[in-house]
């Protein structure tokens, strides 16, 4: 059964598939936070990103593994994330669902004042 993804979940998954920032390519928590902020063009609470990553991992849409920490983070490890095939399927389904919603509607919408 297809997973229903929220917009924020989609933003997190997309930032794992195709990061556009230098740090985003490292795919650990802070890097994903920066990437999502860049992608959404707004400030995002760190807690929202970590909670979403946790939820997506529990759903089996992403996986994670620990990497050695750097000096600046006092040797604490990084948790690096990768998207799973189920995550890609879920994104495809989410995109298809939105496109179905807009079938027959001329874009951009008119009639509002």
């Amino acid at each position, binding site marked *: 059964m297809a997973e229903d993804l929220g917009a924020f979940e989609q933003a997190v998954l997309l930032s794992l598939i195709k990061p556009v920032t230098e740090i985003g390519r490292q795919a*650990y*928590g*802070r890097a994903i*936070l920066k990437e999502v902020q860049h992608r959404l063009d707004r400030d995002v*609470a*760190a*807690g*929202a990103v*970590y*909670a979403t990553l*946790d939820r997506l991992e529990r759903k089996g849409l992403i996986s994670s593994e*620990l990497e050695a*920490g*750097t*000096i*600046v*983070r*006092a*040797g*604490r*490890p*990084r*948790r690096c994330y990768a998207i799973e095939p189920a995550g890609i399927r879920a994104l495809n389904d989410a995109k298809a669902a939105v496109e179905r919603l807009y079938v027959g509607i001329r874009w951009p919408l008119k009639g509002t004042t």
Partner: protein
Amino acid sequence: MAFEGHDMRSRPRECVPSPPRWAEELLRAVLDPRDRDTVTGDLLEEYREVAFPALGPAGVARWYLKQVWSLMPITTMSLAVRMTLLWAAAFAAVMIARMIVDVLAPEDIVGFFLAQSRDDFSVLDYPRRWLPVLAVAAIFTSAGFQVARKTVRIRIGALVAIAVAAVGFFATTLIVLISRLASIEVNGGLYAAFALDAHTPRFPLFVALLALGGVLGAFGATVARGLDLTLPRRRAAM
């Protein structure tokens, strides 16, 4: 990177910008054990590389606290607040019950002190002297137990019990104050319940109560975790 190439672990904590230790410990206490090092490491990295150079010593502490707040799991927070209020209400109820008993049947304080000099004196013969203390101890332990069962974290259980002690202390003080303003003759609340002299300084009493809450809450939480580990592994409902 602002600090690349410097071995910060070999330098004293004061020499490199570091977030408030208590805030970091608080964050570690509420995070899932698997996330403790990774999330605090991410935050430390941002702190040192971006926030500190941009905000300076004054602004960076505020920034860090804001991050800690955003990282507090909402479900854990709301559970902790609800449990604190619930058990603090129970704490206050014990104190009110003791006050009501004292109003309805005033204690013979002189008789009590005279009895203390007798050989056969036992405080167990005066339940109003030890029952409230026992009840409060049970409240702290239960708070720690219940929270640890729900969050699977001992430290949150202990923290909630400390919060119960703090809220209960202020609630009891407030009740005594309001009663006196309303000209209702009540006893000294915590002082009477804990058989303390009315001149005992308030602050040490407060600190002692927090310590008692912390110890008993941690005990209750440890028991809860022990039971949890003997049962089939379950994931916290949060």
